[in-house]
């Protein structure tokens, strides 16, 4: 058949079998064109109007997703930086430091601020640069645009303008939102894959207007001029309103004519379209809302701690000012000078005894700056650096790399790493997340006989639980590998396979059965030119599985033409024969009908109606004579349902010519009617013919579980994480999947909340909506109450409950007044399954859980319908599987398989939580230890605001002497190894119960810092002041005391780190000892600078401190004393009340847990496989 002919056929065929009438109609909305919101005017292919387009300010097709541009980077990122309270404080301090109020030089406070802000800005800049590179890539993709020379020229995407005619070829993306003019098919249809927009993998059909569908050739476009008036750019993906003025007439345009940027042309050689929305005006870009920025609980708590520190700061500054004011006032009273050496008679406002309150106020400001060291300036940037590095570890983890899809795990945001260690409830999607979304034809029941010997994963897990032997497993696995496996087909039965079905007693019924499977569908065959294999583009994966099964059995669906379907059948004498069936009508599947039928005329000119549908609707449509195998089939169906299989009932009916004729008339009348009830009418007419069917059998398709899902769920449960499954499936399927993945167990009691009661159904039939709602609500409340009382009564026995609720009931349960009681019930159940839930409900449930528990929720899903849930939850994890990228784009972490969740949470989550918690605690510790030494010194300097240390010692404290070890801690520390994290999931409770970042722990660390400061100040002053500190009789002065105290602080803080680290790598050694060494190096170098620069540090170390034995002895004493409290505490804790990780560490230490490095493990594995091969 010539190519052109074939394409021609499609048009009529498509029009024939589709329920939806694509003929454009004027809708009321079209009247709005030209008004507000509908004012866009596009001059197509009209270079003369280009200027007008510019005037109308239509944006170009250049797309930028960057946060900053070259011009606004500095102001905007600075603004972002100073939105943090702590940073504002430091900015204000830096500004005030230029006034005489400052206790130290302005440069010394500016320098660390610049370093910190600069580093954060650099990080932002790098991230934005990456986005920019992606943009550049997208903007420079090539597309063919009709230009002034009347040819199609390759142009960059960014140069496409509104009104341009664009040619897009097969498998290319659309560069902008286009109005379809014509396609390679004569009738102007094309297929579009919208995976990037809504996540659906099936193809969608788009239509060109009839008037333009002939514009096939470049030469036509020379004269083509048209004007499109349409709505303004908006984010609605499923609606579009516009008119096309062409040849003096106006034609309505709808979403059917619009090709959206982000989608892809499929199964169509090429299309021509007019760009109407470009760049940021396109619907996909309008949809690109910035994902809600999420912050982890730890970070929120950290803000509180910062506020606490601010209050402490204000408090001690106030106390200081009070004393300062009193002291200053006393300096000059009754004409007498007290501390005459300060010249209180001739002084400035800052020390004026005549205005003590004013001086005290100024001193208050000074003190706020001086004690600013309580606030860790580098905390934010350190945490950010640490989190980025942690994300790299997540991305690089080989154990989370999926070999099959070639996808590693991706931390798309680094904000939430530690939140992974605190997940309390996982809300999971089912399809594509727990299951593979690949359907396999595994069983069927034909003529009352069950076929299919393979055991499904679900059956196996059921059998395992019952303790049944698994007889066929071995055979099955071998068979699996030996035979060439066909995707979507896992049917093993020697009675049917390889043409053996011809010897079965009911072979004629088997033939009919598979014929229905091969004919009754809406799929399109696609022949792979190279291999000659036939692939099927079907609307649902079930349908593809049916076609593959039919093909394997011997009913190969080859071609679909104008009015016929061609099969290649296996016939009685085991030969293949081509058979054509005349296809007269297709009654499509939809959710309310739950069935689909085709009417065909076979070779023998017999009229047949072939039908398949859900068991709930099909059994009621059988004729009296057609029920011969009903009871057996129902038995089989029940068994299949228990095994978690999807069931379709197959039936057929022979039709009279007469009956068909009269029905057809009615049907076409219904189809061509233009009233609002058209669809209903069509359905009604279709219903008439789909009766008196004869049962053939039922199919069972397995929704395959992903690898290791049950094991993973079991481990997560052991870690104390609850799992809720939110699925769109019906209750039976969902319950079965629940069993399969050990969410529900035999020993659990089920609480089912449903509205499938007769009373409510009756009420619904009466159509009284209010009464129905009221009755439903009451029924739900009653069921919730009953559930609660059941749980209460069983509390002692330790029986666990599983809650199963359907979508409709969920709707009512989520209403404000019973929301709480529902939630209470749900939280008391070990697992919860919500079936038949819509995407919106998923998001609502997530919000409810998040709001009520105030604990961390994690949502995991793979499809566009999970996006709401992913964004709503504290953490969204996207499965980067087969469905589109939508879920991944909305997620915070992307993993390839559900089972990686185990490692993501138990290993990375646990580690990251622990690291960040330790890091923050330590940060506060070190800054309090340092800040309070300043305060103690002040107390001995009549609170005058003189810092105890040289300016530059202080400003380098946070940046150089203490920052790197804490970063090393945040990046590398691990309490126990990954294997042990997985082996002992209860370790995760440390994060779940927030043990490491609880207020007692934080306050204890702060107290430790406070103690450290006291110890250091007390010991140094007591042992050094007054008497000579060297043999040559020199005494300690301001400079020497500063150096000594500071050395003690640096030593103490770094050694504290050394004894709190669990995992000492060379990096830790380098940073910790390096920081201490650097302090001395700095001191020497700084001391050798001219005295104008080094001021009090001039030769302070080399000449004064280093030769003094006392200096070193005091340092040693102070450091050991500061470490003693923590060390003793930990020693007692690990002995008497060990934390979870202490116990496991101990086991590991005692050699109970041999930890093999990966290299060794790999070798062992290799040897094992070799041995297996040899045997």
């Amino acid at each position, binding site marked *: 058949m010539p190519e052109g002919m074939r394409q021609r056929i499609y048009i009529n065929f498509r029009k024939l079998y589709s329920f939806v009438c694509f003929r454009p109609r004027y809708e009321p909305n079209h009247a709005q064109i030209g008004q507000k919101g509908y004012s866009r005017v596009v001059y197509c292919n009209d270079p003369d109007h280009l200027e007008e387009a510019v005037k109308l300010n239509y944006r170009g097709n250049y797309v930028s997703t960057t946060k900053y541009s070259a011009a606004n980077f500095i102001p905007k990122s600075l603004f972002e930086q100073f939105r943090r309270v702590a940073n504002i404080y430091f900015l204000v301090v830096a500004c005030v430091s230029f006034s005489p109020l400052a206790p130290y030089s302005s440069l010394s406070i500016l320098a660390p601020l610049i370093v910190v802000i600069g580093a954060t800005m650099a990080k932002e800049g790098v991230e934005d640069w990456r986005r920019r590179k992606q943009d550049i890539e997208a903007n420079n993709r090539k597309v063919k645009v009709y230009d002034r020379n009347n040819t199609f020229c390759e142009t960059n995407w960014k140069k496409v303008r509104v009104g341009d005619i664009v040619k897009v070829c097969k498998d290319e993306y659309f560069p902008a939102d286009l109005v379809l003019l014509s396609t390679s098919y004569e009738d102007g249809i094309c297929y579009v894959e919208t995976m990037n927009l809504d996540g659906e993998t099936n193809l969608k059909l788009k239509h060109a207007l009839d008037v333009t569908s002939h514009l096939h050739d470049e030469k036509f476009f020379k004269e083509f001029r048209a004007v499109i008036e349409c709505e303004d750019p908006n984010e609605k993906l499923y609606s579009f309103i516009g008119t096309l003025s062409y040849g003096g007439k106006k034609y309505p345009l709808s979403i059917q004519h619009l090709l959206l940027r982000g989608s892809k042309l499929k199964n169509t050689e090429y299309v021509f379209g007019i760009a109407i929305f470009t760049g940021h005006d396109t619907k996909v870009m309008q949809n690109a809302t910035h994902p809600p920025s999420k912050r982890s609980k730890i970070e929120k708590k950290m803000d509180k701690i910062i506020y606490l520190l601010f209050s402490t700061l204000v408090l001690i500054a106030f106390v200081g000012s009070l004393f300062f004011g009193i002291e200053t006032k006393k300096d000059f009273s009754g004409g007498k000078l007290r501390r005459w050496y300060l010249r209180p008679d001739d002084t400035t406002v800052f020390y004026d005894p005549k205005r003590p309150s004013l001086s005290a106020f100024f001193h208050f400001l000074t003190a706020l700056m001086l004690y600013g060291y309580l606030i860790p300036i580098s905390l934010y940037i350190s945490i950010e650096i640490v989190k980025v590095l942690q994300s790299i570890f997540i991305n690089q983890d080989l154990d989370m790399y999926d070999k099959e899809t070639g996808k590693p795990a991706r931390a798309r945001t680094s904000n939430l790493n530690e939140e992974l260690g605190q997940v309390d409830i996982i809300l999971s999607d089912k399809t594509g997340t727990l299951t593979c979304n690949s359907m396999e034809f595994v069983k069927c029941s034909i003529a009352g006989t069950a076929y299919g010997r393979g055991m499904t994963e679900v059956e196996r897990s059921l059998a395992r639980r019952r303790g049944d032997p698994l007889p066929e497993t071995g055979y099955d696995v071998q068979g699996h590998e030996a035979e060439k496996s066909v995707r979507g087909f896992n049917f093993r039965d020697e009675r049917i396979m390889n043409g053996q079905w011809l010897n079965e007693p009911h072979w004629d019924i088997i033939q009919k059965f598979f014929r229905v499977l091969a004919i009754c569908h809406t799929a399109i065959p696609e022949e792979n030119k190279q291999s000659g294999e036939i692939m099927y583009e079907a609307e649902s994966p079930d349908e593809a599985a049916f076609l593959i099964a039919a093909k394997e059995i011997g009913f190969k669906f080859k071609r679909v033409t104008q009015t016929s379907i061609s099969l290649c059948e296996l016939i009685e004498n085991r030969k293949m024969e081509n058979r054509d069936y005349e296809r007269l009508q297709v009654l499509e599947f939809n959710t309310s009908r739950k069935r689909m039928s085709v009417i065909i005329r076979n070779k023998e000119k017999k009229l047949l109606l072939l039908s398949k549908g859900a068991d709930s609707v099909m059994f009621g449509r059988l004729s009296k004579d057609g029920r011969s195998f009903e009871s057996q089939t129902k038995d089989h169906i029940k068994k299949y349902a228990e095994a978690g299989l999807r069931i379709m009932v197959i039936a057929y009916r022979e039709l009279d010519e007469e009956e068909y004729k009269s029905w057809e008339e009615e049907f076409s009348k219904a189809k061509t009617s233009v009233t609002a009830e058209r669809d209903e009418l069509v359905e009604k007419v279709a219903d008439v013919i789909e009766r008196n069917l004869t049962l053939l059998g039922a199919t069972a398709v397995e929704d395959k579980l992903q690898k290791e899902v049950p094991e993973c769920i079991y481990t997560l449960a052991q870690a104390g994480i609850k799992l809720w499954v939110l699925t769109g499936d019906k209750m039976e399927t969902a319950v079965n999947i629940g069993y399969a993945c050990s969410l529900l167990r035999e020993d659990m009691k089920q609480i089912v909340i449903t509205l499938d009661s007769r009373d409510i159904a009756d009420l619904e039939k009466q159509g009284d909506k209010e009464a129905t709602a009221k009755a439903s609500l009451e029924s739900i409340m009653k069921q919730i109450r009953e559930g609660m009382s059941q749980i209460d009564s069983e509390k002692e026995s330790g029986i666990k409950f599983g809650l199963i609720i359907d979508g409709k009931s969920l709707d009512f349960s989520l209403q404000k007044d019973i929301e709480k009681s529902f939630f209470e019930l749900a939280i008391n159940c070990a697992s919860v399954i919500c079936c038949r839930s819509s995407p919106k409900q998923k998001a609502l449930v997530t919000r409810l859980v998040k709001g009520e528990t105030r604990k961390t929720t994690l949502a995991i899903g793979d499809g566009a319908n999970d996006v709401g849930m992913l964004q709503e939850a504290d953490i969204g994890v996207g499965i980067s599987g087969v469905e589109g990228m939508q879920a991944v784009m909305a997620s915070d972490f992307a993993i390839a398989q559900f089972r990686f969740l185990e490692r993501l949470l138990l290993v990375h989550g646990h580690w990251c939580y622990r690291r960040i918690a330790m890091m923050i605690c330590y940060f506060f510790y070190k800054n309090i230890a340092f800040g309070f030494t300043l305060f103690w010194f002040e107390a001995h300097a009549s609170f005058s605001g003189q810092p105890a240390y040289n300016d530059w010692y202080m400003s380098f404290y946070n940046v150089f002497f203490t920052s790197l070890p804490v970063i090393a801690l945040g990046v590398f520390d691990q309490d126990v190894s990954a294997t042990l994290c997985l082996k*002992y999931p209860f370790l995760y409770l440390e994060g779940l119960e927030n043990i490491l970042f609880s207020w007692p722990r934080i306050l204890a660390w702060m107290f430790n810092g406070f103690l450290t400061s006291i110890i250091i100040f007390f010991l140094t002053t007591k042992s050094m002041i007054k008497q000579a500190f060297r043999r040559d009789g020199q005494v300690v002065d301001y400079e020497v005391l500063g150096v000594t105290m500071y050395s003690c602080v640096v030593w103490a803080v770094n050694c504290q780190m050394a004894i709190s680290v669990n995992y000492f790598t060379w990096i830790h050694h380098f940073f910790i000892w390096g920081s201490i060494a650097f302090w001395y190096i700095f001191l020497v170098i700084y001391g050798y600078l001219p005295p104008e620069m080094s001021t009090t540090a001039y030769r302070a170390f080399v000449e004064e401190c280093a030769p003094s034995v006392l200096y070193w002895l005091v340092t040693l004493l102070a450091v050991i004393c500061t470490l003693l409290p923590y060390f003793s505490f930990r020693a007692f804790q690990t002995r008497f009340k060990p934390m979870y990780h202490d116990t496991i560490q101990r086991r590991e230490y005692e050699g109970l847990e041999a930890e093999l490095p990966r290299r060794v493990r790999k070798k062992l594995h290799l040897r094992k496989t070799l041995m297996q091969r040899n045997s």
Partner: protein
Amino acid sequence: MMSSNTASSSAVVAGSADSAAPRRNSKKPKYSRFTQQELPACKPILTPRWVISAFLLVSVVFIPIGVASLFASRDVVEIVDRYDNDCIPPDNRTDKVNYIQTPGDKSCNRTITVPKRMKQPIYVYYQLDNFYQNHRRYVKSRSDAQLRDNSSASDTSTCKPEDAINGTLPIVPCGLIAWSLFNDTYSFSINSSQLNVNKKGISWKSDREHKFGSDVYPMNFQTNGTGTLIGGASLNSSIPLSQQEDLIVWMRTAALPTFRKLYGKIEVDLEPNDVISVTLQNRYNTYSFNGKKKLVLSTTSWLGGKNDFLGIAYLTVGGLCFFLALIFTLVYLVKPRRLGDPSYLSWNRNPGGR
């Protein structure tokens, strides 16, 4: 035959999978011990043995140090004589401030008995009390540039109000510190023979050489200008600052309000029961702020002056650690419960366990 066949075929399969691998596995993370977080590391954990040995180690190191320090401190002979009260004639004791501010001869004689043999060098200190040399106004009131360099004599902006006379003639050295220079003087005699006090080398070498210029001479210092307050000592304007060691010592501000400063060195040994008579000029005003004045004579040891605190602190901490080590040992002996006791592990609070 059969088995070899399968082996070869499976090898072929494996080979083909490998050849397909690079294309598909381009995103596969590369293995390194760093990225897989498997760096070699030591994992210190607090086993009883470790805890006990750490405590013991500390006590073993600390107790000897404490004993040595205590001995060093005990070796030092220190004589402290408070004179601020006694050197005011009894008639003037009601208004000491007035006495000290009125000009006149304020010499005062004190006698000190040497309790133990004091080997030279004996350091002479004055100790002030309640004197806030670390006050911010005081500390900042100096000009390092001026002290160092002849040419920046007028660099006195930080020195107010002691910056210049009548606002024009810069004071060298300027500022409150120099202005309030300590001006009590001591002279010692033993059996009416003069005891020499060496005042050379009492300041830091780096100060003399780098912070105080050898060509900077005092100017307009303590000159009784237009009724300004007289501060402390005056300086000989013919001696450069780098040789004015009393000033240099004074300019090193003290850390705390109680401090000693070096006055000089006595470079002869003093025998026990030697009676030293001190003639001092009690000029410095500490009375307005109730500060004490003390004269201190002290020898030094390898650790410096006399202070028992360090030794006691070392002994205390060492003893405490020994005590803790003892407790842990006892606990370990009495109740030897293994930390890695598996009974801990069965303890499992999660609701999902089977």
